[in-house]
């Protein structure tokens, strides 16, 4: 068993061999450690979503291969026997509430697990467990997914994927369009899954504050290529790298840089989270007092 998800020389063309041909990924080589929290950042159209769709064989690499555990995906992979892989890798798409369709919340959450052959008798406990994870009341179970609020719909959709008990969770901008409280809730949930269940998380996001606060590794994509892959600390310490690819600094680091520019004697390591910056400032003042 591999301890990594391995992308080897992956190319992907949309509409290969037609005049509409468009190269979305070019020679992607990437090893994402199992059990890590890895974020993918980059401008719109840089190939982030294309890359993660391959983890479920929704599209196949035109050239190159991907290895996840014992699964090997290349252009010749057939569409048969993909269920074990799709059960292992749970994909939460942009605006996942779009995928809701069933008569009741219960049925919608049970849809994935039933497709993957879970026992009918276990379904109720799995649905309840997933609802508890996303902190929705059990009573919502018998409502139609179209009569609950937008934020609740998003949570139900996420619960539907979590009910499949994936080992690897891939999220494509899960917080977009939510209010700050909702965003924080979703990110805390993902963080909890990562820490408590040791779930591998792959997150696509444009919100640098979120990326910096939660991820261990960061991948930068640009024009279909992976241009940087390093720890979050190293990536966000390198301002010129971020500027080069039109990415912004997280607000904690922006503020930290301003303080440094004003000659304040802060810690050397850049803060990944506002709380870390707060700690550094408190320490600085207590140092100054002694």
């Amino acid at each position: 068993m591999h301890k990594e998800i391995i992308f080897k020389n992956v190319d992907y063309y949309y509409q290969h061999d037609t005049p509409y041909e468009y190269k979305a990924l070019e020679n992607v080589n990437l090893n994402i450690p199992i059990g890590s929290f890895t974020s993918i950042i980059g401008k719109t159209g840089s190939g982030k979503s294309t890359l993660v769709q391959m983890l479920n064989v929704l599209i196949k690499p035109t050239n190159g291969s991907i290895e996840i555990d014992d699964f090997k995906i290349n252009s010749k992979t057939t569409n048969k026997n993909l269920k074990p892989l799709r059960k292992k890798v749970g994909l939460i798409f942009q605006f996942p509430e779009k995928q809701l369709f069933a008569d009741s919340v219960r049925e919608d959450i049970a849809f994935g697990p039933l497709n993957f052959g879970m026992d009918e008798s276990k379904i109720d406990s799995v649905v309840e467990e997933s609802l508890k994870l996303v902190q929705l009341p059990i009573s919502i179970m018998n409502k139609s997914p179209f009569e609950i609020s937008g934020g609740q719909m998003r949570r139900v959709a996420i619960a539907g994927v979590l009910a499949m008990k994936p080992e690897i969770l891939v999220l494509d901008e899960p917080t977009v369009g939510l209010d700050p409280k909702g965003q924080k809730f979703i990110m805390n949930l993902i963080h909890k899954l990562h820490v408590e269940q040791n779930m591998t998380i792959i997150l696509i996001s444009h919100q640098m504050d979120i990326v910096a606060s939660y991820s261990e590794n960061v991948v930068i994509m640009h024009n279909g290529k992976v241009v940087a892959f390093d720890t979050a600390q190293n990536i966000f310490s390198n301002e010129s790298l971020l500027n080069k690819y039109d990415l912004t600094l997280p607000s904690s680091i922006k503020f930290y840089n301003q303080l440094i520019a004003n000659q304040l004697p802060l810690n050397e390591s850049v803060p990944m989270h506002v709380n870390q910056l707060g700690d550094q400032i408190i320490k600085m003042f207590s140092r100054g007092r002694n």
Partner: protein
Amino acid sequence: MENFIFGRYMPGNSLVHNLNPAMKILISFYFIVIVFFANNYLTYALLFFLCFISLYLSKISFGFFLKGIRPLILLIIITVLLQLFFSAGGHIYFSFWIFKITSLGLISAAYIFMRFMLIITISTLLTLTTSPLAISYGIEKILSPLKKIHCPVDTIALMISIALRFVPTLTDEATSIMNAQRSRGVDFGNGNLVKRIKSLIPLLVPLFVSAFKHADELSVAMEARGYSPEMKRTKFKSYLIGMNDYISMMLFFVISLMIIFFRN
């Protein structure tokens, strides 16, 4: 599906692309009518010649075009085989059970094949070289005499262009919903018929929901920008009828005269 070009638009800047869309639609229909006047090899040759010239002037590569209409070949072959085996008359070459190959059957199969090829070529060429918006403009122009009898031609044209404009949006939407459901373990297009139809429900319900949402949002946005069906609307892009339009019309007309002259 990716290689399927029938009904798709390919942007370009050729003589055929720049013809007046109303004229192009009329010419295409006119061509389809005269296809049925042809009844010997010379007249069919004339029509193929006309197709060839149009295709050449559109600057669309011949190989791409042939590859694009290949998915339709199955339909053509079935029709041709039906003609071949089931039409009676003339000398019988071969007979087995209810199948017969006769001299008249052979000829009519050949004619059907050629008619299919001609009509598919010209209609594919029409959609390849005319943007959806231009097509709706053309239809509006062609229907404009109906305004005299209080037919809401403008509204119909707007409806057509909105429908066409949302085809790619809904296709994208369908793809993303399909992907989401596939990663939840749905096998589209696998299993028996009942299973296949059942697997469409998780696709169709969200697709309808989003289509209605789009329609709702669009109508609000249109009202916010002051749309009213009673108002007279101007066009952002106007299409004039130029020299090329007259020349191509003449060409088609002359060829149709020749066909009427040469047919037996």
